[in-house]
């Protein structure tokens, strides 16, 4: 550190590195010394960093270090995260699968609950649902349908493989919710203590 030019170069380097904003030559000089040849030091530094992973660049009279543009791809990393569909999401998907093509208003009528825009977006992002044209009624609402990706994900050859209403009923999947709840409650008790339904009149 006997070389004053080298000293200045180091100081400018550190100043720009630590700066939270790009800096003008005079802003840099305020740190490293008013009389210093900051411009000279900057062009010297820019040359040193040429071809490195970091470059020293000037943008609108302000200097900053930035990572080399050709390395942008390594500074991003994609990561897949398993996420579970929300209840609204899975219900909406089921309604579309059973009723396609179906408009948003129809989905809401079947669910009995409004759906948010995000719900359909998620299903489309997952690649399971696609827009399927507009219905020829007043307002021309957009309809939605499932995709081949949907069939592939759920292991279905076609939508006809979805269990029908009768199948669902047989599987107990159509039981009204509160009855199903009662059934659960009763399981623990001694059934003999309770009158059964068919004894009533």
């Amino acid at each position, binding site marked *: 550190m006997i070389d004053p030019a080298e000293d200045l170069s180091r100081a400018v380097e550190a100043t720009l590195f630590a700066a939270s904003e790009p800096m003008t030559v005079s802003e840099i000089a305020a740190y490293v010394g008013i009389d210093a040849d900051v411009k000279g030091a900057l062009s010297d530094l820019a040359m040193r960093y040429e071809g490195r992973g970091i470059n020293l660049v000037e943008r609108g009279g302000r200097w900053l270090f930035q990572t080399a543009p050709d390395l942008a791809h390594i500074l991003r990393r994609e990561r897949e995260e398993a996420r*579970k569909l929300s209840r609204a999401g*899975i219900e909406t*998907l089921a309604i579309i699968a059973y009723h396609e093509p179906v408009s948003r208003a129809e989905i809401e009528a079947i669910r009995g609950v409004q759906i948010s825009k995000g719900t359909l977006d998620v299903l489309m992002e997952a690649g399971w649902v696609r827009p399927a044209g507009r219905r020829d009624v007043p307002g021309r609402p957009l309809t939605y349908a499932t995709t081949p990706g949907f069939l592939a994900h759920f292991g279905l050859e076609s939508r006809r493989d979805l269990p029908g209403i009768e199948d669902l009923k047989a599987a107990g999947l*159509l039981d009204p*919710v509160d009855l199903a709840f009662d059934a659960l409650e009763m399981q623990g008790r001694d059934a003999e203590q*309770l009158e059964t339904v068919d004894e009533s009149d």
Partner: protein
Amino acid sequence: MGEQLIIEEFATPADGEPFLLELGSWEGPLDLLLALARSQKVDLREISILALVEQYLDFIANAKALKLEIAADYLVMAAWLAYLKSCLLLPREPHVDPSPEELALRLQLRLERLNAMREAGARLMGRDRLGRDVFARGLPDGLRVIRKAKWDAQIFDLIQAYGHVKARAMPAFHIVARRRVMTLEDAIERVARLVGVAIDWMEIGHFLPETDDPVFRRSALASSFVATLELARQGRLELAQEEAFAPLMVRAA
């Protein structure tokens, strides 16, 4: 903050300010003892514990004279040191355990350790510290992790969800599971009939029908109890009970 300065602060509390204990940088008795020890400008291993104790006790006495609030820690320490001092001064009793020398030595060891940590802390604080002396990059571009959601759902989730949707839409009908009960009318009729037959006091349980069904038995007991109240009101029977929860006795009026 040099130790010397601290001592001065102690010696001359600024214009009646409350005791420096409240400043937060002064916390406890070892602290003060250590400061006093250092003011002797000698190796901690060579200081006179006795002299130290005297200085400490002087300080506490002085603080008391100033009517300053003194933390319990200081007084406990003062009491302990006064004891230590008396032990060191009085002729030694042969089998006192632990000996005053041992206590003094332990005190010295503690002071050495606290002193070592205080010096270590100072050296630590004097290092080139990130954000004060050395700086990380001020404008990091940031590394990005692009999270791609992998949505997970099974076929069962799907059909179960559809079942729920359809079930919600179905007209709900409720069935109340019926239990065997004894109506109040039945109970009045039964109790009235049985009490007419009985001669003496009888416990209410005797009026209940035979059953193995505990639910029905409870219903019968409740109804029969209400029935006895009703019949008593009509003056057709008498009720007696010795104390709360004692058997309820019934006889014809």
